[in-house]
């Protein structure tokens, strides 16, 4: 039976339609679809290594709508690391991250030691870009967190995003690699990855 306390919990926040689920599903399953299904709350689990032993990475994909403030608070208080996603094609979506960031600060207090990654997704849609890379970087600096642009569609920086996030964790050593052992899903994902090198 998986031990609850041993889990490392990552929570993904962001406005509706920025691609939170796409990023998560690209990472977890290696798949991508154009269709949009609003998320309520999904959690995926993956085995990773943590302090040289095995633990479960729990990625919680949250809703983009603000319908459930109580659920949001609960996710924050339970989360160990956070991914804040906006779409580079929508300045509004970056704006909408502010209250979430503030709430994380409020609930977590000292955020120095908490891994947070600001993510500009959809960077394959350069022609519709509203938020420059530099603006994202500036915001990250202000928030004292890391920054990355990604594309779930082209699988750009997706795995790197999660790896980087775990590297930010200083209180324990967490890594996606489990020595010598790869799950079927991971293998499959890598196979897929080989097929679409857009970088």
């Amino acid at each position, binding site marked *: *039976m*998986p*031990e*609850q306390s041993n889990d490392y919990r990552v929570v993904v926040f962001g406005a509706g339609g920025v691609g939170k689920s796409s990023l998560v*599903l690209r990472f977890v*399953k290696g*798949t*991508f*679809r154009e*269709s949009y*299904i*609003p*998320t*309520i*709350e*999904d*959690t*995926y*689990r993956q085995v990773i290594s943590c302090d040289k032993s095995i633990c479960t990475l729990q990625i919680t994909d949250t809703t983009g709508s603000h319908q*459930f403030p*109580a*659920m949001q608070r609960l996710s924050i208080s339970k989360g160990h690391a956070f991914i804040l996603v906006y779409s580079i094609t929508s300045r509004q979506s970056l704006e909408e991250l502010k209250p979430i960031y503030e709430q994380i600060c409020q609930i977590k207090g000292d955020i120095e030691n908490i891994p947070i990654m600001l993510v500009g997704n959809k960077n394959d849609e350069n022609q519709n870009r509203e938020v420059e890379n530099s603006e994202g970087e500036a915001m990250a600096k202000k928030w004292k967190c890391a920054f990355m642009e990604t594309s779930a569609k082209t699988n750009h920086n997706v795995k790197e995003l999660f790896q980087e996030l775990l590297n930010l964790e200083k209180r324990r050593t967490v890594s996606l690699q489990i020595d010598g052992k790869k799950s079927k899903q991971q293998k499959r994902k890598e196979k897929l990855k080989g097929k679409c090198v857009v970088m």
Partner: protein
Amino acid sequence: MKPLEKLLKKPGSHLPVRPAAPPGQVPGPGSVPAPRRQSLSRPPASPEEPAGPAGPVPGGEGRWLELRPPEAPLRSPEDPSPGCDRDRDRDRDRDREPPSPEPPPAARCCCGCGCAPAAPAPPERLLAALLDRLPAAAHGRGCGAESLLDDIVLTHSLFLPTERFLQQLHQHFVLAAGSPPARWEEGSGLRRKRAVLAVLLHFLETYKGLLQEEESAGKVIKELYLLIMKDTSLYHELEDEILKLHQLVETVELKVADETPPPNKQVKPLFRHFRRIDSCLQTRVAFRGSDEIFCRVYMPDHSYVTIRSRLSASVQDILASVTEKLQYSEEQSTRGDALILVTMASSGEKAVLQPSEECVFTTLGINSHLFACTRDTFDSLVPLPEEIQVVPGDTEIHRAEPEDVANHLTAFHWELFRCIHELEFVDYVFHGERGRRETANLELLLQRCSEVQHWVGTELLLCEGLGKRAHLLKKLIKIAAICKQNQDMLSFYAIVIGLNNAAVSRLRLTWEKLPGKFKNLFRKFENLTDPCRNHKTYREVLAKMKPPLIPFVPLILKDLTFLHEGSKTLLDGLVNVEKLHCIAEKVRTVRKYRSRPLCLELEASPAQLQTKAYVRQLRVIDNQNLLFELSYKLEPGSQ
């Protein structure tokens, strides 16, 4: 087996299978005139059942459905059984009568006056028979017509799908509008129309909110409504009724296929997955099949997706949403790796749900979860880790006053009880035979009942100190006592059953520490809930209570099940009207219990709100093995 299930599973364990031979046997102390009931073994033309004032009624014999050959005459339209004065007495009598534990005799004169409730008739003729009688009721009131109307509206689905029932009603109206049969006297067409109107009104009033769920039925009603409106001029005397009809048709917001759907309904979280203080404090409103709810579906690795779905969604629909969410590729599903939906209890017990099953959400056990997996992975499924960390809890129960806990229990259970539509009782017992209508609210109440039972055990068994545990035991008995005072027999029963759980009752040391006064009190409670003689003690106590009250609902279902299984609905194509009547009577007791609002004075102080939130989202261990484990850890040697 859980005590509740045990009770439900053995509907007849304490009952005679057939009405006992002694005629006129009546439960309860002589509150009813003797000839009220008769046994099957007696000849139909019993002297105890004098013919009604109208003289020998052909239907009088016809009621003996199971004895009569099928040529039992249908009550002819020329023979409207006139009113019977004793009817009202009968009603009064019946109110005093304890809920009937007896199976329905195949026939009985419900009022003992021989006024002939109604003859068994082929399904399609029964409505006509009802319509024939109704005009009499419109003037004189009285005779069984009103009661027959209610019987048929409540139970028609046993022999006729609602849609067909309405279509027939519609046909009768059309027929009355055309040339009436020659034997009809002047004005009989009008009379028939009025009767149709009366049936429709009663139907609408009874169904109300449920109709939004039945599109096809709604369509028929709309048509009939328009038809009635066409010749409103005929109903000068019935202006009030017409007005009522307008209002009813409006309030039920009949959904007709070609109309735009009503504005988006708010999603109602089913409380099991979303323990949220903000929503749990709100007054509960009834769930309907079209309501959208959230539900978590787990994967073998305990990942989960939350899907938004209609409460009535079929397993197939749920799986489609899950597949879509997981971006499960088509290649996978055609390879025979298609997903199946499984329910799994905290104990690890699992069952595969059939694709066609509907509204499964409310039928799950307390800590059961839905899993989606492939056939290959089914065997490897393991339950989610216990939600409750098995550490000595210091929950609200230790802080709160017993009065407050009891009152919040009663208040919440009253809300849940009120959410149940009368027809859910009928549908719950008969579903599977007829098109399934949702009985979600009833199921939620039953789920809650078993939740309270496990809550009692969970709290006690998570309490490590012996002294503290004995104190909590005393408190729980006190809570049961107050619930009983509140006439909340549901909470009362659930707590007593919970305390009787073998994992709890074996805690000898704890029980020994209980003050004598409370030991005696609990012994009394055990007597009251004793199922012997078909729950005689409880039924007697219940009969003395005045509404509002919350009955122990599982027993009502047991009675209904017995009524159902004890006699046939149709024999040789004739409807057993007596059975319908008995079932409707049972439903009417529920109506009576709820006829007055239950008001408890509850403060809204923060402490009270905390207790309220606690009571409304109990966290329980429903895994009996785990409860035993805890019990043995607490008192190893005890027996």
